């Protein structure tokens, strides 16, 4: 999907809507179990209706900000995500069973490299499901990158929290990032520009 010029700007929204409608029909048919004519037709009607009522979504972003999914990277992200989720469950178990020591809590600010709401949401959710951390606030910032406020149980070192968050961001961008995100990732090796 490359292309420059006006023609691209006019065609792409249509292609996008068709792809989305197709995805919706696919899910609809899967929910009903069999690709019968009735299911396909009703699916198409529902898809058209839904897209008419909710036309928004990431499609509103400029071409450069479009999320692009690469083939294998989502699995790497998912793998890391699952590992962190399992470990976080263990850490909760330990906190519950262990004697009540007063753990130090804290809030750490993490500046992401990306400004994209998609990446921000994915990373914020991933952080919440990792051991000891919970995203409590987020500030969008088109220029410097999204700012996340992360609450931590058992805080020893703010930098380690930031490192872990930025690592997640790297995996998320590799999997779902837009061209703009990837460029930012390449040019800012260090978290603070």
């Amino acid at each position: 999907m490359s292309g420059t010029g006006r023609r691209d700007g006019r065609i792409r929204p249509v292609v996008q809507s068709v792809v989305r409608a197709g995805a919706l029909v696919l899910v609809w048919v899967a929910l009903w179990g069999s690709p019968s004519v009735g299911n396909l037709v009703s699916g198409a009607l529902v898809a058209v209706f839904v897209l008419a009522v909710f036309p928004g979504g990431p499609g509103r972003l400029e071409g450069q900000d479009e999320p692009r999914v690469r083939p294998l990277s989502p699995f790497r992200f998912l793998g890391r995500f699952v590992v962190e989720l399992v470990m976080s469950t263990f850490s909760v178990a330990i906190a519950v069973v262990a004697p009540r020591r007063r753990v130090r809590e804290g809030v750490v600010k993490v500046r992401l490299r990306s400004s994209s709401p998609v990446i921000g949401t994915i990373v914020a959710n991933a952080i919440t499901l990792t051991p000891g951390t919970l995203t409590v606030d987020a500030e969008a910032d088109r220029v410097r990158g999204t700012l996340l406020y992360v609450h931590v149980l058992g805080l020893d070192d703010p930098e380690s929290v930031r490192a872990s968050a930025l690592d997640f961001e790297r995996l998320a961008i590799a999997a779902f990032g837009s061209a703009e995100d990837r460029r930012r990732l390449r040019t800012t090796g260090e978290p603070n520009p």
Partner: protein
Amino acid sequence: MTALEVLAAVCLLLGSGLALLSGVGIVRLPDVFARMHAATKPATLGLVLVCIGVACVDTSLADITKLVLVVVLQFLTAPVGAHMVGRASYRIGGLLDPDTVIDESDV
């Protein structure tokens, strides 16, 4: 019992154990934010395990799609729910434990 049924049983039991853990956690932990940790993490994993367990027993496409949908929805919404409550509490400031350290370093 077939291997698949054994897998289903294990997943269901583990998931339910995590449900219990969430309940214990939300009662025992000392403050709101800690309880949020207990409410989201084991519960999400528990739900995933239960869904895997059900998928082993009930393998039709229609039902597996529903289960996948539930898992995806859970991943998207559970952290956000806790986050929104946390954000509200953080902004008002009334619920943070008094000796919470806030890292004010400008990043």
